């Protein structure tokens, strides 16, 4: 293998490790208090107006009806269409949606390149004339790649213009925000240029992926393609190290906080976990708190009359 391949491997390993660490950090945080926010989409028959099971008389005696289909629908609308941004910030959506949807297509492009590379490990050739299935794969890969790069590049540029031209946005934007967006624009431009000029059918890129999965040295690649691979590798590594990896956190933000309305029933597993939390040392130092006590002791002691 050659240096560029080691860089790609390192970037993928770092990216996955960073995402796993991030997810674990949230997943292993202590069970917190309830802090849901309505509307909660799994509230069957009530989600539309923001209602909850707490609207039911003697709600604890009734079976809970969760509408998981509606929750999935809401998630799909959020992930694919960025529904929240569309509803509340149309100006941001005009750039944010193409940017995000473009990235989804780019991920699809990478997956299709991988599928093509695996196929080419056999006798198959993924070409514009390679028979129905492989022909479709060929055009799909190219389609996802070009559409994804154009959309994400245009979206990133739009976000860059918005951040730098809007007075309020400018106040809250830092060098890293501009750097990240410029990074995306550069990657999109370089990658598009590389494929339009040197690898229009993405065959060279597929060969690179093939070399990666078979761990053999990649054959010579052109300068632009080399630059593309370096930039993509660096980007893949960089994203999870920044807050751009909010896709990991968003799951927890929605499922562990915003939509988390599971009632604590007597004798439940949740109750056992919560009882365990009361044994933690409270630690706070204000005069009305004895920092040496546990939570359970501190919150059940009587405050003395003065």
């Amino acid at each position, binding site marked *: 293998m050659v240096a560029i391949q080691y860089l790609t491997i390192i970037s993928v390993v770092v990216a996955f490790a960073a995402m796993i660490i991030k997810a674990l*950090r*949230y997943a292993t*945080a*202590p*069970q*917190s*208090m*309830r*802090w*849901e*926010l*309505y*509307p909660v989409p799994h509230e069957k028959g*009530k989600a539309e*107006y*923001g*209602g*909850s099971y707490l*609207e039911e*008389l*003697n709600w*604890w005696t009734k079976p809970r009806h969760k509408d998981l289909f509606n929750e999935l629908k809401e998630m799909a609308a959020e992930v694919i269409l960025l529904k*929240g*941004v569309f509803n509340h*910030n149309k100006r*941001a959506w005009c750039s944010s949606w193409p940017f995000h949807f473009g990235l989804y297509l780019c991920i699809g492009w990478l997956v299709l390149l991988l599928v093509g590379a695996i196929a080419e490990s056999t006798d198959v050739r993924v070409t514009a004339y390679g028979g129905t299935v492989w022909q479709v794969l060929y055009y799909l890969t190219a389609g996802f790649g070009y559409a994804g790069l154009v959309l994400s590049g245009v979206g990133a540029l739009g976000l860059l213009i918005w951040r730098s031209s809007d*007075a*309020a946005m400018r*106040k*809250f*934007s*830092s*060098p*890293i925000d501009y750097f990240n967006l410029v990074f995306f624009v550069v990657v999109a431009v370089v990658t598009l240029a590389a494929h339009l000029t040197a690898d229009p059918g993405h065959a060279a890129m597929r060969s690179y992926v093939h070399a990666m999965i078979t761990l053999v040295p990649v054959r010579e690649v052109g300068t632009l393609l080399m630059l593309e691979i370096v930039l993509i590798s660096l980007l893949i590594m960089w994203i999870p190290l920044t*807050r751009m990896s*909010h896709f990991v*956190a*968003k799951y*927890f*933000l*929605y499922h*562990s*906080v*915003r939509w988390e309305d599971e009632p*604590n029933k*007597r004798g439940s597993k949740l*109750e056992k976990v*919560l009882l365990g*939390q009361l044994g*933690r040392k*409270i*630690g*706070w*130092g*204000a005069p009305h*708190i004895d920092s040496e006590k546990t939570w359970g002791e*501190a*919150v*059940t002691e009587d*405050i003395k009359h003065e």
Partner: protein
Amino acid sequence: MSNQDIKVKDISRKTDQLFTLDTKELPKLPYPYEDWEEPPIGDISETKQAKYETNLDGIMNVQVPIPKTDAEKEQLVAKFLVGLRKLLSKDSNWTFLQPLMLSLDNCVKCNTCSDACPIFEASGRAEIYRPLFRSDILRRLVNKYIRPGGKLTAKFTGADIDLNWETISRLAQLAYRCTLCRRCAQTCPMGCDNGLLSREIRKLFSQEMGIAPSELHEDGTIKQLTTGSSTGITPLALADLMEFTEEDGEERTGMPCKIPFDKSGADILLIHNAGEFLSWPENIQAFAVIFEAAGLSWTLSSDFVGYDSVNYGLFYDDTQYARVTLKHAETARKLGVKKVVLGECGHAHKAAMAIGDRIWLGEANIPRESCMVTLEDIVLNGKIKVDPERNYFPVTVHDPCNITRSMGIIEPQRRVLRKICPQFREMTPHGVHNYCCGGGSGFAIMQSNNFPSWRSMVSGRKKMAQILNAFTREELDPKVNKYVCAPCSNCKGQIRDLFNYYDIWERCHIQYSGLVELIVNCMTDAKEGFIDWEEFH
């Protein structure tokens, strides 16, 4: 410094006052208040100014003592940093660590939250009241002073902020320019919650530095945990008060108005906000008349703390919150009731039902229900007789944030109103998308210094406009009596102050009160005229 020029890093600027609200810049109110001119917000007395910080905006609702020496300032800054670390600790802050981390780490700073914030909008878009402004101060402090390598990368990552006395004293005040209504969180595409971050800042100041508004702490939770109620009403005084309330209720309605206490084994323990006992006894009477007429097995408690559902800890301090709510749970357990019904008080609902869900444990895990639901069952299932024609006047409803946005209790109260009020209409927006009354998170009880003026002019401005817009121009004529149903004690307090400030009874004849008052007003077995238009306002 002009409003538009203020940036987050200016929070550490060594100036006397960072921002002064120009009341001429506030958005105009609708008819008939288009020409209403707001006076400047008054100054704070020189004695207070010498003692407490007003270096944010010259408004005072949290008393931040001014350190006497530079050494003292440094000590306090160091203490703040210790608190900041505890805020991120699994032991000291297990209660909210996960949502805190998520909201701290993942804001993309798109500013979508700004347009949802009633205070930011109603202030004429004052930069310091922007939801992101406050949360970004906390975020930058964590990123620069707590995260490894934070100082090195601060310029690049945008954590360029200095930690000094100005920063933390202003941050303490800024945490009390947000009503924790969480409307901003609803619009956040990521799901980040500026309301939560405001509360976490308040917690740090209270739980580590002992800094909190006196109305919430000394005269709030401390008083409640030492006398039994934040109003200061002791169990003995309560008995006297209720005797008079019963007599008066029977006289006004011509119906039994028995208020049972400490009935062991009753089906329902009803807990009121004790503010009702003093300020709105008709609310207590109405509950008694309705519950008795419906034949419910119910009781109030005279147990220490058990008769006052108030829990101001919800707004600023987890330990005080837990102490109070566990007293409520213990009261219910001792009485052996089947369920606890929360009276018309939004924050009490959230304290006992939503957050309390994770702390009423074991034998104290007695089911809790909203009175909106109990009342819906009574009214819609014909357990009392009503004549909606008695409520033939324009009625609108205010949605308490804690009951609606934080708990999803939207329709029960509406189904009651639709049945008993022929002229019921909604505000815009309403339900989960409502605007806060402006008195949320304890603001309604903060009556000192110049804060009440700010509360009426700024935090309550959106609600004032919503109320006016709920009625037609013809209806706004003072000859037409109108009613704002505000089924929450704190919201009522805020609306009362708003109405007084804007002289709304004289100018528009709009009245406010709760849901139960409307129900009793149309009960066919009750004397007519429970709602006394001249007396209620």
